[in-house]
């Protein structure tokens, strides 16, 4: 494992449970989907933030274990919470116990809503698996447990050739917005744009390894977005996260989607 924990000469992050940055010599990299406090039957665990945090991290642990990794291999953590006070008082300590002395880079966000209105926390990870990709394109998607969702829980790729796509919105090449007020049209335009970028990079939708979907309304997205998304990926979904937030860069935009893809 060739990991550098980046700590500038700056005391402020000390004791905060994460590193300002982490670099790795990327060979095999794991992206997880956003994981929540759901049980295998899809229902949320009872018991509020502490229980949801524990369940989310247990599921992440299973995904890491499947890949032969542990929390010490995590490079980046992304936390989405809907109740910061609850996280501070009863979630943070649960999270810390899973990481022990390990310190990933981290970003924490308070969002308006997650997939289920009762969901309080969702967590996604990037981990360095080490080992050798042996020059071959590497793309392995898997589930550590059965679930009904249109996503894989983990994607393992050759980390040296990743494609990072800017968040895509429903903009036309002339700068105008496609589908003002129209969720279906915006979903189509966003995936059109993602498709153009992937093609320009010599990749296909199946090579998407991680997707983050930011929407102004999960309820509206659910009526129009998933059909467009299924047509785009044709069953070969990335690890993914869906989050509701109050705004995007222009008031007309209803959805923004970011994709990381593996390129050969």
């Amino acid at each position: 494992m060739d990991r550098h924990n980046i700590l500038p000469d700056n005391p402020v992050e000390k004791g905060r449970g994460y590193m300002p940055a982490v670099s790795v010599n990327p060979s095999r990299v794991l992206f997880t989907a956003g994981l929540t406090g759901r049980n295998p039957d899809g229902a949320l665990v009872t018991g509020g933030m502490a229980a949801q945090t524990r369940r989310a991290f247990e599921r992440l642990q299973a995904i890491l274990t499947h890949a032969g990794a542990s929390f010490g291999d995590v490079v980046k953590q992304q936390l989405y919470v809907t109740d910061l006070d609850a996280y501070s008082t009863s979630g943070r300590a649960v999270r810390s116990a899973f990481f022990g002395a390990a310190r990933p880079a981290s970003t924490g966000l308070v969002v308006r809503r997650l997939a289920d209105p009762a969901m309080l926390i969702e967590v996604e990870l990037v981990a360095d698996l080490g080992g050798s990709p042996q020059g071959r394109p590497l793309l392995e998607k898997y589930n550590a447990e059965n679930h009904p969702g249109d996503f894989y829980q983990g994607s393992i790729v050759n980390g040296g050739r990743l494609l990072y796509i800017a968040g895509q919105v429903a903009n036309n090449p002339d700068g105008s917005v496609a589908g003002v007020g129209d969720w279906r049209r915006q979903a189509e335009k966003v995936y059109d744009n993602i498709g153009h970028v992937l093609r320009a990079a010599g990749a296909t939708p199946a090579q998407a390894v991680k997707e983050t979907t930011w929407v102004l309304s999960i309820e509206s997205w659910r009526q129009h977005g998933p059909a467009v998304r299924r047509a785009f990926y044709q069953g070969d979904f990335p690890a993914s996260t869906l989050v509701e937030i109050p705004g995007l860069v222009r008031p007309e935009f209803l959805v923004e989607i970011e994709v990381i893809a593996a390129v050969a």
Partner: protein
Amino acid sequence: MPYSTITPAEAKPVANYKMATRMEGGRLLYISGQVAWDDNGHFVGTGDIGAQARQVFQNLRRVLQAAGGDLTSLLKITTYITKIEDFPAVAEVRSSVFQGELPASTLIVVQGLFHPDFLIEVEGVAAIG
């Protein structure tokens, strides 16, 4: 530079950033969301988005330098703000910091950040080569 830029003919960015970047070697660096703490651990610019943005991008630059890179190493940044009204001030600071085209970029207005005083947080991923 250990990455290449993808510029599709059929789709354009909405501002001065790259549509996508492809890593071509080097070390992969993940940077935590940076907030407006100064070197002494004091929070800078309470209620002042311009001051916070300047501190945040200075911190981002320092982390990159500590990792052996600089702003040109960035593959992608994500800027989180809590009010869309703050975006023009953020864009002004960001343009002066990058002095040209940004890397691949995403802007999201979130409900909040991890302290009520935080108005902006910026994270990045970079190729250090």
